[in-house]
């Protein structure tokens, strides 16, 4: 019961983009931190990341009839 509630909560957070920054952090840890790219792509703060994420998300057709 508790675990399915937790699952639903995770699904909701993922769907809404509530955990986008956490995803970014894990992507960063995986892909950038160990390489030279680290210098070119410094880690963004939550506010900085959210700005970029939101602006990019709206660059194209996102809604339909």
């Amino acid at each position: 019961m508790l675990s399915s509630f937790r699952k639903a909560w995770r699904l909701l957070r993922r769907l809404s983009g509530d955990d986008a920054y956490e995803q970014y952090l894990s992507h960063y840890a995986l892909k950038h931190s160990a390489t030279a790219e680290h210098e070119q792509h410094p880690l963004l703060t939550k506010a900085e990341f959210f700005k970029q994420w939101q602006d990019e998300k709206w660059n194209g057709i996102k809604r339909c009839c």
Partner: protein
Amino acid sequence: MTPLLKTIPWLLIAVLGAFALSAIALNRGENISALWFITAALCVYALAYRFYAAWLAATVLVIDETRATPAERLDNGRDFIPTHKWIVFGHHFAAIAGPGPLVGPTLAAQFGYLPGTLWIILGAVIGGCVQDMVILFLSTRRNARSLGQMARDELGPLGGTAALIGTFTIMIILIAVLGLVVVNAMKHSPWATFTVSATIPIAMIVGVYMRYLRPGQVLEGSLIGVVLLLLSVVGGRFIDADATLRLVFDREGLTLAWWVMAYGFAAAILPVWLLLAPRDYLSTYMKAGTITLLAVAIITLQPTIKMPAITAFIDGTGPIFGGKLFPFVFITIACGAISGFHALIASGTTPKLLSNERDIRMIGYGGMLLESFVAIMAMIAATVLEPGVFFAINSGVGVVGADAASAVAKISSWGYPVTVEHMQLLAKQMGEESLFARTGGAPSLAVGMASIFGSAFGESLLALWYHFAIMFEAIFILTTLDAGTRVGRFMLQDMLGNIWPKMGETSWTPSVILTSALVVSGWGYFLYIGVIDPNGGVNILWPLFGIANQMLAAIALCVATGILIKSGKQKYAWVTGLPLTWLIIITSTAAYQKITSTDIRIGFFAAANDLSDKLAAGSLSVEKANIAPQLIFNLQFDAWLTVFFISLLWLIVFDMLRVAVRTLNGQPVLPLTESPHNPSRLVEDWVRD
């Protein structure tokens, strides 16, 4: 399990589905429960998904689970992200399901419940779902390229240009007709106008909250927004009750149309975080919540359908829009059965999230099945109303007359009895002054939804449910409107950028203002004409939108068919070729009738000539004579627009046939642009988190 045991449940589903379909198809004169509609739809969907979609995936497209998707290969942690299939499904469905599947079935209910219902179910499983799934597959195999790019790469520059122009014009018509639906829902309704207006500052509060007060806390911000929205529905009642405040929100259609245009312009130039993004969150939650609620209510309450299976209006004399059953039911219900617009989402946006090709069936085919189901629910909500009430709400004053007594007399004379008292009582229950001639589909859908919800939660709440339903429709209509205006602005900037590069800079203020103003005046023009049109405007704009949307679907299916043939799969080209042929037949017939028909309720030129004859003869009232020149010009313009749409369609059909014939003859064609096979490295449990 033995094969036989596995087959039995599917046989039962097939029998049940056939039984439910024949129950709704053969029923005459008796009241039928909405549960039959749900059963028929779900059984057909289940069979189609289990067998047809699975066959498409395995045999036609040859889905390869071991192949890395663009999301995996190009993973950048932002737009390309391998994502769990249910999450992608959620995003995809939220993107494709707009107000279209709610409005179309409501309007098409003038033919009775049967034609629309059959087209929604069968059109989706054979046409719409196939289009969405195949385009999603093709784009996934091409680094998530857009439909326009794929058309250019695979067919040639002609196809690419046609797709681009098609997308732009359909956007303009779509926004205009949706704007008209909102305006008609708010006209002289202080409660609805207040609630809809309140969604703008509420979205801004949420936007500021997410951006500055608590950056990135999307769910917190959304929760605040949803609570405020519900309060605004309740608050509207107090505005409506207040003698002075209600005057502020009690407006003519034309005034509201100017407000909507000003809003669209503001939304296109304001930063997205302030208005577009937060409004989109709110509308998505509202949409998901309300549609779920409606489904639960229909399944548990099993309302009775009051509309007959088929009405006399299949002969083309219908009050909501003119034109015979064939081809107009197929034009009126675009979204819900097949919608070209989905191809724009299925290419470009969704493939960037797909973690494995095997999810294509569920997201492409399954997503459209769910949209089709939404359309079925809209059909139910429209047909649970007494037919007399349904026609009283949806018939324009140009058809039934402006005063209540003549309207009810006319509607009753069609065999759908309704009284002034009944309409007044209903309006009072819904908290409105009048429900006559509230064209556009939104008010009648809201009355239908309110009566379904009302029977579950008590009649005293009818007015609240009605305005909740209006707010729910308006909020995502406005989301489509502002997102569409913005996309239109980008497309226009892109096109103008080819002529003058400076115009192509999306952040150069003069370009932003100029292109936004151009896009808004484009749809604003159609909206303005729609509002002043005494026949309600929807009767002209909706068929135009339907033709445009089906044309875009035909373009997408041309691209798909062309690629299937180029890939050596001509044996299976019928899977997209069949729906394509049907779309070509219905759009061409509809366009032909819209252009050449001598019936003034169908033919644009006929209507224009009739009006100018009347104007010349002086037989129009002063009021009508004043607007007649604009209406005449618009009718002629619409006729030429239809000519343009249909020429564009045939151009791309011939372009596709050219590519097909050259391929089959072994002559050189543009090479396939499928990206090479890269093995997937994603570990199952890692990405499926």
